[in-house]
């Protein structure tokens, strides 16, 4: 294998590992704020117990996100020097603003949020939680702006083969950016609500009936039940936006080989790129035309319009189906759970058992969605501006193979350790129940240093 494909696998592995953790921290910050505000309003210590269980998950996820994010900032240079040389004038400022406005903010106030409870007043601690949650969301804003610009570049001109910024507003709010940002923020919200619901279900199955378990479970289930229909709508809008700006990606998502009307919605198929056809196809007649054009005779772009200039069909087609399938499963599970919690005030055991593995459904859907959109951008790194093959660096393939192998081993081990800790934390919380040691919560700051804290 050559440097290009190895570098792509390596970057794909790194960014896949990385995105798992921001997907959790972006929304979990706001959930923690919700727990905190509920506590402030009700003085019910169960909210604070929920906070302290989940703030540990936040801390661990944040650390995993930071170290894998640092890795990626270096890999732009080590593996893809052509990227910065060609579009550095655009990508650079966006990344710089991410570090300056978001990264520092999160990192500085994280310490206070995690360890500062007795060292600052309750008000300042709540403010620190707001700043950390706001920082992670702002981070997502800048990164999504850059990623969307790579998908649908705007507001620039090429001079001497290098992109130069012309209109920063158009660069940041490029055509696909608002859709992708909303889609991703909702994905984060869903990932976190299913994670909280799933681990709370695990506590439930372990016999925990404590108030903090119920509060976390309800928060997770109801948030998921509310967000999933919104996400389905937002995802549909995002798809229509893609149809307008990146039709070749939609053609690959639908495995539609020929442009024309009455295009079926393919439910299952093994797309064969050499024969340019789908094998074992199961399809709903006119389905794709109806969804994308709202008319059975609507013309849907096909891959034949983009010879040599469309993404690989198989991964994009299946990535999209896994994402949508997981989304529908999320809808079914969260609405059933919400029904039982609301009407019966109970959680049936089989449903609880289903919710435990569903704790990771958000990860699956998010990864599948990102694979769809990122592989769907190929062969371009920046659509119409820079091909992926032209950005790769001069490093020897053997070096990349070596580093890739070690990264993969490291990431698998870390992922196992991470999931192990999540289960450990949940079971520990289940064992302690409402008798878990509650930290001293005070309205005023203690004298410094905190004595015996």
């Amino acid at each position: 294998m050559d440097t290009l494909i190895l570098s792509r696998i390596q970057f794909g592995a790194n960014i896949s590992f990385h995105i798992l953790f921001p997907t959790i921290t972006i929304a979990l910050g706001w959930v923690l704020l919700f727990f905190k505000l509920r506590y402030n309003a009700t003085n019910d210590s169960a909210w604070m117990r929920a906070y302290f269980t989940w703030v540990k998950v936040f801390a661990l996820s944040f650390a995993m996100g930071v170290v894998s994010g640092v890795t990626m900032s270096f890999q732009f240079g080590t593996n893809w020097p052509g990227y910065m040389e060609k579009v550095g004038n655009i990508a650079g400022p966006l990344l710089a603003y991410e570090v300056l406005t978001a990264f520092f903010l999160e990192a500085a106030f994280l310490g206070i949020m995690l360890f500062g409870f007795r060292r600052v007043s309750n008000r300042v601690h709540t403010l620190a939680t707001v700043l950390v949650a706001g920082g992670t969301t702002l981070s997502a804003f800048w990164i999504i702006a850059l990623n969307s610009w790579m998908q649908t570049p705007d507001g620039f001109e090429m001079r001497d083969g290098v992109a130069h910024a012309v209109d920063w507003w158009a660069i940041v709010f490029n055509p696909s950016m608002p859709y992708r940002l909303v889609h991703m923020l909702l994905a984060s919200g869903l990932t976190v609500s299913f994670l909280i619901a799933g681990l709370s279900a695990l506590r439930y199955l372990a016999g925990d009936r404590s108030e903090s378990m119920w509060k976390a479970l309800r928060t997770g289930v109801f948030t998921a039940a509310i967000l999933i229909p919104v996400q389905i709508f937002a995802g549909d809008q995002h798809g229509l936006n893609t149809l307008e700006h990146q039709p070749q990606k939609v053609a690959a998502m639908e495995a539609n080989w020929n442009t024309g009307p009455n295009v079926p919605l393919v439910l299952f198929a093994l797309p064969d790129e050499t024969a340019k056809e789908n094998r074992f196809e199961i399809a709903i007649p006119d389905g794709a035309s109806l969804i994308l054009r709202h008319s059975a005779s609507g013309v849907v772009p096909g891959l034949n319009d983009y010879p040599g200039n469309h993404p690989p069909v198989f991964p994009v087609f299946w990535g999209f189906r896994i994402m949508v399938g997981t989304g529908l499963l999320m809808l079914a599970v969260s609405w059933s759970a919400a029904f039982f919690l609301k009407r019966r005030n109970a959680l049936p055991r089989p449903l609880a058992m289903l919710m435990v593995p569903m704790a990771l459904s958000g990860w699956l859907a998010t990864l599948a969605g990102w694979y769809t959109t990122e592989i769907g951008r190929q062969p371009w790194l920046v659509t119409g501006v820079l091909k992926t093959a032209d950005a790769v660096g001069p490093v020897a393939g053997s070096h990349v193979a070596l580093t890739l192998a070690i990264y993969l081993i490291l990431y698998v081990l870390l992922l196992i350790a991470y999931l192990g800790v999540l289960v450990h934390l949940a079971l520990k919380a289940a064992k302690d129940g409402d008798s878990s040691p509650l930290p001293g919560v005070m309205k005023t700051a203690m004298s410094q240093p905190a004595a015996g804290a």
Partner: protein
Amino acid sequence: MTFDWPTALPLIFAGLMGLAILIYVVLDGFDLGIGILFAAAEDAEQDTMIAAIGPFWDANETWLVLAVGLLLVAFPMAHGVILTALYLPVFVLLVGLILRGVAFDFRAKVPAGKKHRWNRIFFLGSLIASLAQGYMLGVYVLGLDVGLGGMAFGALVALCLAAAYAAMGAAWVIYKTEGELQKKAVRWLRTALVLTALGMAAVSLATPFASPRIFDKWFVWPEMLYLSPLPVLSALLFLWLWRQTFHLPRPDDSHALTPFLTLAGIFVLGFAGLAWSFYPFVVPDKLTIWQAASATESLAIILAGTVVVLPIIIFYSFYAYRVFGGKATDLTYD
């Protein structure tokens, strides 16, 4: 000379990048140093040492992201050249930083029986990251020479930097702890200082001979005269700090921060020497900061943001340090 933005901006950004690297080296230096000192500490002491850096390390590492970000943003050409030449050392650095960073959290959250494992990983990650940074510095000083000589020189700088970080870590422990651990840290500091001084002397002697370019830059009259305060001041600070270690810790705990500040001063002097040796190159002998700089309008928009945001960052960083001021107590999530 008239002032014009295309000339000034790359210079400003080189300065900002240098500042970010310097702040990173000083701040994460003590984090990494404490990780290295983990090897010599008892279980209970390790908890206190972690408590001395736990609330800060994230923000400290962010300065590295800013430094590499500024390199990437302001000097995209140099970014590619330097990082592809240093592909494997960068990789080793990243693995070290990953292990160090996650061990912080894992060691506090895994079942008690597995804590030891993560303590060892914390030590290893910190050591690996420190050595990799030193090695990269060495290879960079020699103009990204990756021959056998370059590797040997890199290894020398690696050991020197690891020792210097250990000294920083010990100095931070002296500031943040009391009792037995503080006394122990003074002994650590002495050992680390000897190693750092030996390393710095060896590196200073080897540098002009390993690099003819730097030789020419150092030993020319009258530049030699202007440059002379750097080594003289560094040596004086070293000697003074060495004497201090015989009086620390004082009964009233005064001067507990002095070793750290002195070491930070030595780092600043060393950094100034390096900056002098390289100017105006960002890739030694290949690319000057003006050749490697990105477009003026892009630099301008980043500068506008930086000028506004950097003081705010520095302000709230100080605030965070103040909140966790005083002697470190066990870290709890409250």
